[in-house]
Each structure stands twice: as structure tokens, then as C-alpha cells.
């Protein structure tokens, strides 16, 4: 507990943008076959440091086969909520779940160079207290730390629906299920909210048998993955509306609400439209009658390709789908970054008018067919995937692995983990920094990135921009 609020907590997104630059990044190290233990890499992001762009510390856990994926902070700017009185927490611990093992590690990063494991929550405790499995997205909010899960109970995670559970933000004790009335929600992926307006939005990937051993082509072609987004009364813990994006819009993943809590809109990325292989972004918003609406505002076309250049899974289509696997919104709500993992492109859209996004910049690197090299001449395995934007919006970092078994299906010949960075021009535009290229230790792939002091997909703000 501090006497003053943690200096990395900001009342508004605007104030967060003015905060000092990030000095460190934390990135998932994934051993795809479970031969080694997973970990968190601490990357030096201070450009005036001698070890800039290098992994300067690693926290490798003692267990194997956890499959680290997404992770988050114990506390963020949401602690300045005038309602909850958590203002004196420290942003100090990373909550790192294993989506294959259901084990959760709490890592103390107070001194990033000496980051260490603070607590381990064994899978049995999670199963027993929540009935959920395969923990995924972390957000710090009004009642503690909220964690979404991808699986329900039972060995294959299909005994009951997945959902969200709450953890105590000081002791990391699991408190229990979040939902009081989940309505028709039966799959889960991401979630985020608007705290003053008291709503939450959640999305759907698929159930564990649909992803753990790779994408199930029959399920995808028969539209059996998730395609709905759910709107919740956050404090009543009740699903108030479900929007079906259309069953052809398979895998509605990342939910990115506008950071300014005065606004009642946000975005959701859809991996693939099974009718035409397009990737899509939906804008969702609350209309004047208080009803939620969603409309497709961005489509990204597949690229035609020679079946010889394609993996088994895609040969029949003679095309490579963009595969929109991650999106991220800058703190000024101006630019939406869209990772097209299949075609090897990172798109930057100007979403100042959220109903009419305009492509403002693009970077090509990696990709199933193009396999574009990094400007430094080195290979970039797989394609652009988990993307994180600096608080000031000037640097965009990303890594390349999607999910162990899926990487192997879409990129059977690729291997490796890389983290790269692109710089944003004053009037938009995006250019890879030739000198920033983190090559992960042999045997490791990379996934989500978190920036020291908060970034564009962790912090929830409780006060509007002025």
C-alpha cells in the first residue's frame, strides 16, 4: 500500500499519454512443444540504454506445458475510480495464466531486472472455486482482478460454459464466478468495459476441443466457432444484450472500447468470414435508445495464392486469408492497429470517425506466402500478431506467434520468436524500426507484450478527457 496513488495511475487517457516513455517491456516466452518451461522476458525499451532492444532478464517458471498467452496487471488506472477506494495499490504484479495448464503465476516486477515469482495458483484451486478452466484475459476493475476463461469444467473444458472469475487484488485469492445471469453466452474470449458507464462487452473464440489441438477445419467451415458479442451490466453481472455478428463471422476476438469513458463505442476484430475469407472489424455502439448496435466497418480481402505455397489447411482455397488475430486502439482513440497474421501485414486505421475508418498506414513483414523480411534483412517467422502501442502512441510493438498448435498448421515450416517495433509518423503512417528486433532464445516463441507503467490494452480510465 502506498501513501499516494501509484504514479503510473492516470485519471484520464490524455494524462497517460503525457506520462514518461516506457523503459521495459514484458513479453511471453512460449515453449511450443512444452519441452522447456514458459516464462516472461524483460526487454529493455530505453533507447539510450546500452542493452536497448535486448532481453535483459527472464523469469522462467518451474513447471512445463503451461502455454502462457495473455497476461495483465494486478492494478491499473482503474484504481483511481472514485467508487472503489483502491487508489493506493501498487502496479507491481503481473498475473500470468497458462491457458493449457490452467495454472496462474503472479510475478513481482517491482524491479524489472530482478522480476520473480510471487505466488502460484494451482489449477485445482481454480477448478474448485470457479468451475472454469483455461484462464486468459486479465483486467483490473472495481471488484478486484477479473479473468476471462476459455473453458468450463471437466477434462476437456466443456462441462458447463466458460466465463469470468474475480480474484482479490491484494492477496490473489480466487473469489469466484463473476456472472449472475449469463443469458445465451456459452463461449468466451476477451472482455473489456467502460467503468463510469458501467457496461462490459465480451467476445467468443471457441471451446477447448476447437483450439487445443489446432483449428478444426470442419467446425470452422460449418461456422461452429464464436460469432457473438455480449453486453453486460457490469455491476449487476448480467448479460443485457447479445449481438450475433452473423455465423459466417467466425471467431470474434479482441474487444477494444474507446479509452475516453465519455464515448459509448468500441471495436471487435473477426478472424475470418467463411463466405469470402475476409478479415473484418466491427464497430459497436450504443444508440440513442440505449440499445447496442454493431456494424462491419473494415474488411480486409484475402490474397490469391498458388496452392503449392499454402499449408495443407488452405490449399483448397487457393488464397491466403488475412486472419485478423489482434487489434489495439491508441490512447487518443485515433488509430486502430489490425494484425493480419495470415498475409503478414500490420494495418493502421484512422478511426477518428469510428463508423468510417480510413487506412492510414501499413507494414509488411512475415506472412504465409509473402514471408517479407524485416528491414534489417532478417527473417520474421509467422506473421504480425500480438500488438501493443506505447502510451504516447508513437511506437507500436508486436510479436509473431498466435497459438502453438495453430502456428504449426498455418506456418508448418516456420519457427522462432521475434518482437519488432514500428514508429508512427506525426500524421499517421507506420514504419518498422530497422534497429529494433528482439530474437527470442532458441526453442521459444513470443506472444503478448505488456509495457512498464501500462499500455493501450491494460488501463481503464474513470474520468473523461477534458
Amino acid at each position: 500500500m502506498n501513501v499516494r496513488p501509484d504514479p503510473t495511475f492516470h485519471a484520464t487517457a490524455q494524462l497517460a499519454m503525457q506520462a514518461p516513455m516506457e523503459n521495459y517491456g514484458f513479453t511471453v516466452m512460449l515453449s511450443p512443444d512444452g519441452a522447456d518451461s514458459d516464462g516472461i522476458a524483460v526487454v529493455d525499451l530505453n533507447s539510450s540504454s546500452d542493452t536497448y532492444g535486448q532481453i535483459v532478464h527472464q523469469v522462467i517458471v518451474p513447471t512445463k506445458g503451461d502455454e502462457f498467452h495473455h497476461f495483465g496487471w494486478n492494478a491499473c488506472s482503474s484504481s483511481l475510480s472514485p467508487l472503489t477506494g483502491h487508489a493506493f495499490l501498487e502496479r507491481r504484479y503481473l498475473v500470468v495464466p497458462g491457458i493449457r495448464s490452467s495454472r496462474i503465476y503472479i510475478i513481482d516486477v517491482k524491479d524489472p531486472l530482478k522480476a520473480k515469482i510471487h505466488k502460484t495458483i494451482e489449477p485445482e484451486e481454480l477448478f474448485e472455486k470457479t468451475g472454469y478452466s483455461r484462464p486468459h484475459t486479465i483486467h483490473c476493475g472495481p471488484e478486484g482482478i477479473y479473468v476471462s476463461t476459455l473453458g468450463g469444467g471437466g477434462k476437456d473444458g466443456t462441462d458447463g460454459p466458460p466465463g469470468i472469475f474475480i480474484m482479490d487484488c491484494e492477496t490473489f485469492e480466487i473469489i469466484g464466478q463473476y456472472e449472475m445471469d449469463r443469458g445465451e453466452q456459452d463461449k468466451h474470449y476477451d472482455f473489456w468495459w467502460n467503468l463510469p458507464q458501467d457496461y462490459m462487452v465480451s467476445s467468443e473464440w471457441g471451446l477447448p476441443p476447437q483450439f487445443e489441438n489446432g483449428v478444426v477445419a470442419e467446425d470452422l467451415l460449418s461456422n461452429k466457432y464464436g460469432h457473438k458479442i455480449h453486453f453486460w451490466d457490469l455491476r449487476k453481472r448480467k448479460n443485457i444484450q447479445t449481438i450475433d455478428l452473423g455465423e459466417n463471422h467466425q471467431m470474434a476476438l479482441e474487444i477494444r472500447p474507446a479509452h475516453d469513458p465519455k464515448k459509448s463505442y468500441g471495436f471487435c476484430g473477426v478472424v475470418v468470414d467463411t463466405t469470402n475469407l475476409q478479415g473484418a472489424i466491427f464497430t459497436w455502439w450504443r444508440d440513442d435508445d440505449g440499445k447496442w448496435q454493431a456494424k462491419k466497418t473494415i474488411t480486409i480481402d484475402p490474397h490469391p495464392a498458388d496452392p503449392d505455397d499454402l499449408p495443407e489447411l488452405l490449399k483448397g482455397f487457393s488464397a491466403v486469408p488475412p486472419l485478423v488475430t489482434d487489434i489495439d486502439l491508441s490512447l487518443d482513440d485515433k488509430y486502430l492497429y489490425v494484425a493480419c497474421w495470415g498475409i503478414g501485414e500490420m494495418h493502421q486505421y484512422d478511426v477518428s470517425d469510428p463508423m468510417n475508418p480510413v487506412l492510414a498506414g501499413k507494414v509488411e513483414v512475415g506472412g504465409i506466402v509473402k514471408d517479407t523480411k524485416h528491414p534489417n534483412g532478417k527473417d520474421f517467422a509467422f506473421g504480425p500478431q500480438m500488438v501493443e502501442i506505447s502510451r504516447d502512441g508513437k511506437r507500436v510493438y508486436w510479436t509473431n506467434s498466435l497459438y502453438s498448435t495453430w502456428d504449426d498448421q498455418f506456418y508448418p515450416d516456420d519457427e522462432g520468436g521475434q518482437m519488432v517495433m514500428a514508429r508512427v509518423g506525426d500524421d499517421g503512417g507506420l514504419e518498422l524500426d530497422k534497429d529494433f528486433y528482439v530474437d527470442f532464445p532458441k526453442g521459444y516463441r513470443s506472444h503478448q507484450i505488456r509495457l512498464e507503467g501500462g499500455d493501450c490494452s491494460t488501463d481503464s480510465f474513470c474520468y473523461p478527457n477534458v
Partner: protein
Amino acid sequence: MWWAVVISGIYHGVNPGMGWPLAVSAGLMQQRAKALAVALLMMAAGHLVAMLVILLPFSLMVALYEWETEVRIGAGAIVVAMGCYLLINRRHPKFLARVHPARLMLWSFLAAMAHGAGLMLVPIYLQLCNVDTLDTGHQAANLLMRGNITMAFYVALVHTVAMTIAGGIIAALIYFYLGLKFLSRTWFNLDLVWAVSLIIVGTFGIYAAYTGH
């Protein structure tokens, strides 16, 4: 003792835990200063009720004239106990997070109750009743009780007005002049000081009861 009522009001008012950041938030979300004022008034109403819920039972008890010293010692002990509890249990009440952001009156009432804000006034109130009684001598019990109830309303009202003015000044300064950067700069962790305040006020109450002042 009225100065103590006013000072406790100012003390509660400047404590962010009693709600002034909510008034700033309401003003900014609706983009008008009127929303800030409305939020302050709603929270004042919630606080006033929380004070009365605590003070009124004591106003009935002090009418038991023969037991007055015991009542005052007991009251002081309760206040000290609350302070000790808050000192040991430094966790924040989670149920406050379940209140909808727009239900400010309920929130303010619950926040005041959870922090023992009303208890802090009890020894001061009892002292005021005591002075009142000494002045008027041995009145009939019903008259005394009526006087005590009126006194409870006055104490709660004066305290709440002082609190609202103090919190309102900070909220308005941040809303109109200083900006939200000062929100995190002016937000101090008063948990420890608050708990100690309860212990001091309770101890004073017990002392005053013993010495008969």
C-alpha cells in the same frame, strides 16, 4: 464543542473516500458544472442519513439520565473499537464497488457507514448533550429526549454542511482550475490517520465521561 462538529465535517469532506472525486467525475462525464453540484448534494444527503442513523439511537440512550456516564463510556469504547478494527483490517469494503456509479446517495451512505464516519461524531455529540443538560438542570425525561433528538439533527446537519463545503471546494478547484492531474496528487491515503482519529475521539469521550465534563 461546535467547532469540533465543524472540523470533523471539514475532515470528512477533504477525504477522497467520502466522495469528492465522484463529484468531479459526474461533472466531467456530463460536461456541466451543474452535475457536479447535484452529485455533491446527493452525497450530502447520503452522509446526513448515515450520521443520523448513528446519532439518533444515542440520543435516546442519553435520556436515561442515571446511566449517562455508562452510556458515554460505552459509546467511547465502541468508537475506539471501530478505530482498532480499521487499523487492523486495512482491506477496503468490496461491496462499495457493487454500487452503480449513478446511485450516489446510496454510495455515500454506505461509504460513511463502512468507515465509521458517524461514530466519529458520537463522543462530540454526547459532550454537547452533556453541556446542554448541565445548563438546564434536571428536566423531565421527555423534554430532555426531545432536546437531544433536536441536537442530533443539528449536529448531523452542521457536520454535513461543513463536509459538503470542504469537499465541494476541492472538487470545484479541480474541475474548474487545476485539472485531473491534481486528482492523483491530492489523493492521500488517510486510512491510518482515519483509524487513529476514531481511537482518539473515542478515548476523549471516555475521558470526558469519567471526569464528568
